[in-house]
């Protein structure tokens, strides 16, 4: 049976990081789109249907937390599952991410297997 691949929006200001995550996720069979910061991510989430977003914290114009805040307030996209990724590893940072509206939190560098496992779980797919 043909299934439509899930669409994942990768939001990070580093083109290299986006490319890296894109490769991992495409290899796992997902369709990937990119955004360069939180505002770009918000616009794309409003324009197109996504099944998951992977969002960095440190970005210009609109950081990851501000993105989550705006996303959760947007009728058109408020329930988009969000995996937040950050360099900061303290438990407090994880708590802050979840409080801001992230569904899950991973610290950089993200092992490819972890990224795929989390994506699958958040998309409701048996991994």
């Amino acid at each position, binding site marked *: 049976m043909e299934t439509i691949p899930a669409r994942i929006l990768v939001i990070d200001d580093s083109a290299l*990081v986006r*490319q890296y995550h894109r490769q991992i996720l495409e290899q796992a069979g997902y369709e990937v789109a990119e955004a360069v910061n939180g505002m770009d991510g918000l616009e794309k989430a409003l324009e197109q249907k996504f099944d998951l977003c992977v969002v960095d914290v*440190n970005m*210009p114009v609109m*950081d990851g937390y501000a993105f989550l805040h705006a996303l959760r307030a947007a009728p058109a996209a408020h329930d988009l599952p969000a995996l937040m990724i950050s360099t900061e590893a303290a438990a407090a940072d994880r708590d802050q991410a979840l409080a801001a509206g992230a569904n899950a939190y991973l610290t950089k*560098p993200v092992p490819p297997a972890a990224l795929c496992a989390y994506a699958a779980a958040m998309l409701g797919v048996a991994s």
Partner: protein
Amino acid sequence: MPLVRADAAGAPAPPPADSEFLVTALTSQDAGARRRAAHELGGLAAQAGAEAKIIEALATQLQTENNTAVREAIFAALGQIGGAHAAALLAPLLRLEDAGLRNGALETLKRLADAAVSAVDPLLADQDADVRLLAVEVMRGWKPDRAVPRLAAILASEQQVNVVGAAVDVALQAGDASLLPALVACAARFAGAGYVEFAIAMAVKALTDRSAVHVDEP
């Protein structure tokens, strides 16, 4: 004809407020007043020759400002004024817990280019890896002859993988082939390290190709 042509732009522009009034307005209860004050101060100080008092007032307000539009106006004003003094007051914000303030300071320091060097240089050796990482990011705004030796040093000795990752990214953008040996040596130090290995491979390829080194934006 429903189209009307006014002869004037509407109400004549209010006379420019003086800096003392604006500095006071920076702490107004009304966010709109704070935003307008920051916006005007940027133009005022940039023209008059940056006044230390204005720069300090703007930087001080940032410490307690929660409104996004006001923050953006303050950062824009500091970027417009420019100079080493503004840079010196922005650099400590890189340490803050608040992601908006951290990143606003980072972007403004990038725009200050050379003026930010003396404030940011010491942060490249900071004991906090997250601060070192952001300092590396600031170098995106620096001329290659300044950034390249610092990048080479980081690639040679930095232990923290995310700081190295940032340095590789900036090295790719700097596009200087003299960084190739440092990148190759770094790859050996971080063999198997997922993203860093990938990033170094991309950077080495790009610098070796001697082609345009700007990774395409979507």
